[in-house]
């Protein structure tokens, strides 16, 4: 029982990280109708920024985190401005190829500047492990990740549904032309979505590198792909879907690692995705609005 709870807790925590990354994928897909495959590498940039701020600049942890978030936000907005905005209206395959290109660019820049060897990342979490009973200890990273994820999800849901900017994002996702006719600045709104998604990626990067204390230029790519799957799993374009998809994916992955086979865990995750997509092609919470005409 103890081991099950501990596996479950770390699964939820891993799922929370996937969910934070998946939110960036799903929000960008919703508003710009594109898959931003460079999103995973923004996590890596966030991780390195925090790592360098702590080790080279000897910044306190809070300041390093803030720098990481700011750098990623600026990076996300810049990528959109330079690489994606000129392609608005171009075929989706061109945008997809560009996104993959940006992903390789970031990875190779990191390889060039920082080298290919993985570095040890000192956890940004200072919370001591929580001892529940003799056999059950939950790490500080797990607890902090779960709390941070829940807080961010609540804040983001409120932001999207209750604020003017959040509603504008929904309007632009649905119909750019009609949104413009309301007086919404579509370009600015899309930039804001990239900013939020990239800020979340920085947070995810900090949590990921603290839980698995290593960083390399490829740190972001596998979690990025997993989070993309989580977004599709939950229904791409849907914010609650990304949250649910991320959490489920993390839990399934961790429990299959623990009880079935750690080598098969990824295969099991993909198999579950395939089954879900066969049964419900729009993903768990993806919906087609039945619009009367």
């Amino acid at each position: 029982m103890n081991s099950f709870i501990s596996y479950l807790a770390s699964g939820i925590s891993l799922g929370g990280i996937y969910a934070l990354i998946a939110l960036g994928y799903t929000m960008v897909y919703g508003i710009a109708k594109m898959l931003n495959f460079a999103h995973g590498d923004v996590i890596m940039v966030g991780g390195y920024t925090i790592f360098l701020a702590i080790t080279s600049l000897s910044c306190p942890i809070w300041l390093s985190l803030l720098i990481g978030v700011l750098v990623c936000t600026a990076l996300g907005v810049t990528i959109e401005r330079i690489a994606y905005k000129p392609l608005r209206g171009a075929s989706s395959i061109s945008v997809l190829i560009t996104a993959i290109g940006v992903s390789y660019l970031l990875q190779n820049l990191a390889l060039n500047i920082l080298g290919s060897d993985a570095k040890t990342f000192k956890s940004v979490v200072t919370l001591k492990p929580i001892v529940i009973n003799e056999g059950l200890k939950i790490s500080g990273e797990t607890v902090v990740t779960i709390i941070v994820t829940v807080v961010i999800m609540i804040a983001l849901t409120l932001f999207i549904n209750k604020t003017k900017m959040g509603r504008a994002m929904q309007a632009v996702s649905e119909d750019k032309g009609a949104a413009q006719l309301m007086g919404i600045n579509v370009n600015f709104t899309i930039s804001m979505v990239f900013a939020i998604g990239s800020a979340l990626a920085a947070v995810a990067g900090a949590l990921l590198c603290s839980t698995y204390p290593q960083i390399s230029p490829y740190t972001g790519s596998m979690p990025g792909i997993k989070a993309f799957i989580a977004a599709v799993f939950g229904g791409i374009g849907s914010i609650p879907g990304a949250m649910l998809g991320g959490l489920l994916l993390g839990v399934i992955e961790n429990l299959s690692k623990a009880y079935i086979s750690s080598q098969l865990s990824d295969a099991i995750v993909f198999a579950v995705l395939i089954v879900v997509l066969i049964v419900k092609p729009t993903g768990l919470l993806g919906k087609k609005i039945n619009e009367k005409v």
Partner: protein
Amino acid sequence: MAMLEVKDLHVSYGMIQAIKGVSFEVNEGEVITLIGANGAGKTTILHTVTGLLKPKSGSILFEGKELSTTAPHKIVKYGMAHVPEGRRVFAGLTVYENLIMGAYTRNDKNEIEESLNMIYKRFPRLEERKKQLAGTLSGGEQQMLAMGRALMSKPKIILMDEPSMGLSPLFVTEVFDIIKQISASGTTVLLVEQNAKKALSIADRAYVLETGKIALTGNAKDLINDDKIKKAYLGE
């Protein structure tokens, strides 16, 4: 000076010239209608006026301000609202949220609340359904919502694109009654319609559009009795 003055407008889609030198003007307080067959360029003209399309040449002056080089989201602030063809309400937002989106350019909460109550008074159906998703409304109700949403920006002029399209005869009559009310409350109206008879019956002046050019213009009362118009557009 006219409130809206369009001069020698040319618009192209790639190599295809859709609008070939159209000029017209709308004076404050008027109801002006652009009529014409499918593909004559009516919707293209409205989209160009509100900035969704950029013209190849020509000018669009609204109260002396040039619109052809202005971003669409700024044009709303000048006091121009556009009810687009096919209504284009935000299906995933509630009726209330759609109306609030219409007031996006305004900041005074009390005034927005006041406008909202006015819209609810004019369209009681929208108040009944304010918490419903807009996508679940009937076509006629969506048209009411699209008009209400446009009025939420407190426009000086409202552009309407085929508001009667696809509606039952009962709703068509209602829509034209509402346009008359909007005009009576002091908002200038530029109406694009295929239902020429109804449009001419409520308009002051009309422009007849044929394959990207103005073919005929005049007082609506005169045009409704014009033999050529009768034959081509009124089906008599």
